[in-house]
């Protein structure tokens, strides 16, 4: 029996699955308990697990991640929510300087099995300070694993994998996906980090996408089909570990690559994919490696502007046609 649920409800279901399974899992953040989260993605957890395991914090991002880090090194498996991924900047010392380096600097004496959940990306007209897609920030830091699911099933399965992982994971939930729906099977769901999923097979080019860009890439591939272009679509699912094997094998078959990224242009994750494919697939290529991204601008608030500048289905289709010229 499968069930259709929202991406939003999948968050609560994934957390509940792990809170039920492992008493060392604790969940903290701003407005996450009594209010059920500002995006209502953690509704019902306080009622089931009580205030010791599902705990509201003050608006103190450093205190939140510090608590998670100190608890993780001493026997708990904390999940900490940072309400908007933009707020990672207020606790960037913990995210980039403390958490990822501690195992290394102590030569393995300290383990940090923790998850930072955060609502990432644009599409909700929140303006430039509540809409950033910052998965590439986290990707650039050695010692952080980076996950960004595109559908409800992956939210549950990858969140479970992140919580069970012995290393720190930044888990980006794309906030425009919260109301989207997908089928999930009954029972426990656990996926593996570092395994991309090929959503659609194709012969002429490979489209690599992440999170909110995945449904757009699939829609673009369907439109390309009507134009006689066969596109393979890969949902990366995790940026670290990065499933290079799936991407490289695909591009060797299709000989063309487009990445679709929500992050602004410079140093987006697609640049890394393009660089790897350039090095490892060069002699198999029949077209320019191409990136579709948000332009290198802060994301504007007005719907007319936001819709224009986030990568759209039509921009992906146009890019594919150019690559195949």
């Amino acid at each position, binding site marked *: 029996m499968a069930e259709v649920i929202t991406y939003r409800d999948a968050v609560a279901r994934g957390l509940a699955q792990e809170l039920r399974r492992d008493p060392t899992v*604790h969940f903290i953040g701003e407005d996450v308990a009594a209010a059920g989260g500002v995006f209502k993605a953690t509704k019902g957890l306080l009622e089931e697990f009580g205030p*010791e395991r599902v705990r509201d*914090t*003050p608006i*103190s991002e*450093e*205190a*939140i*991640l*510090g*608590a*998670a*880090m*100190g*608890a*993780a*090194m*001493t*026997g*708990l498996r*904390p999940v900490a929510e940072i309400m908007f991924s933009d707020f990672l900047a207020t606790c960037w*010392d*913990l995210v980039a*300087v*403390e958490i990822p380096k*501690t*195992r*290394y*600097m*102590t*030569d*393995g*004496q*300290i*383990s940090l*099995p923790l998850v930072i959940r955060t609502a990432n990306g644009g599409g909700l007209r929140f303006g430039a300070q509540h809409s950033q897609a910052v998965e590439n920030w986290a990707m650039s830091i*050695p*010692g952080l694993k980076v996950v960004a699911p595109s559908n409800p099933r992956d939210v549950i399965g990858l969140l479970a994998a992140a919580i069970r*992982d*012995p*290393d720190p994971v930044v888990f980006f939930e794309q906030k425009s996906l919260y109301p989207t729906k997908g089928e999930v099977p009954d029972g426990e769901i656990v996926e593996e980090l*570092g*395994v991309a999923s090929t959503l659609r097979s194709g012969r002429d080019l490979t489209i690599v996408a992440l999170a909110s860009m995945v449904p757009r890439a699939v829609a673009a591939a369907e439109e390309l089909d009507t134009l006689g272009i066969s596109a393979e679509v890969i949902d990366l699912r995790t940026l*670290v*570990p*990065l*499933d*290079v*094997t799936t991407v490289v094998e695909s591009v060797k078959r299709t000989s063309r690559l487009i990445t679709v990224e929500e992050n602004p242009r410079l140093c987006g994750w697609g640049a890394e994919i393009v660089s790897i494919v350039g090095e490892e697939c060069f002699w198999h290529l029949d077209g320019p490696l191409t990136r579709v991204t948000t332009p290198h601008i802060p994301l504007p608030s007005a719907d007319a502007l936001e819709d224009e500048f986030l990568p759209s289905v039509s921009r992906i289709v146009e890019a594919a046609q150019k690559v195949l010229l």
Partner: protein
Amino acid sequence: MSTTQIPEPTRELSAQEQRQLDLYRQVVRIRRFEERAYRLFMEGLVKGTSHLSLGMEAIAAGFGEAMRADDYTFCTYRGHAHTLARGTPMEGVMGELLGRASGVCGGKGGSMHLTSVEHGAMGSYAIIGAHLPIANGAAWSAQVRGSGQVAVCFFGDGTTNIGAFHEALNLAKVWNLPVVFVCENNLYMEYTAIGDVTAVEHPAADRASAYGLESIIVDGNDPDAVYEVAATAIERARSGGGPSLIEAKTYRHGGHSRADPGTYRPDDEVARWLARDPVVTYRQRLLDGGVQPALLEEIEDRAQADVDAATEVARAAPPPQLQAAYTNVWADGGSSWRK
């Protein structure tokens, strides 16, 4: 830990005298170690930077004496003293300073990141303020696990003006965490006097009331006083009484780091504080209290011998293998980011 054999006393030592000898042993060991670290730096064997606790030994010693073996220490880049005070072997600490494979972190941490989890030394943190929230986390975990452990977090006066200090104190109080925050107020941040840039006279203690905490100031150069205040605060935390914030007044004998001669400090101020040297004054107190000089000399000789031995071990140890740079990024022991 020192394995000093105390010469047979002519009468049985009281518990207090025994503790005072332990405190003296700690301040002397830290003093000798720091003097050696400075010398090795000048010889080019300790590289990078190093921040010494010369003049501030009594705080690490007093707390180290009051802590239970499974309590947690969180300290700063000025953390040689706190790491040693938990019983971390000198060889491993010296090895880390010299960048050797024998260091407590295999040479990947350095002077500013000394860690020995098996001794409760949960890391030395080199970004101001970072470890106060982290100490909260360890205390939270102890509270959840019902382990009775206490986290003790040392930091400098400069930390009292950064946001993490305030975030951490508030959360510690709200969650009633078993954590003790210890501000080592040595009057200077790096080069600037804390009083010149702070709205209140006592940078930690005057902020305590903002978080519903008692204002506690202690003479940080007096090992007995530090021990007493530490024991009280740790007991309060362990018994569910919540956090404490302690301001220990002290002075560093040198500059902020190896690169700083500390010339910005008035001569008379330096002279005044040197007269309150915690090692010298504590020695005199013990002698005045009737402790035999031979007991103290034995402790001093042993500390020097331990430092000499640790130095030799560290100097003889090889540097880390190049391959070590690729280890322990991840829990699987490796550094691979791709699949």
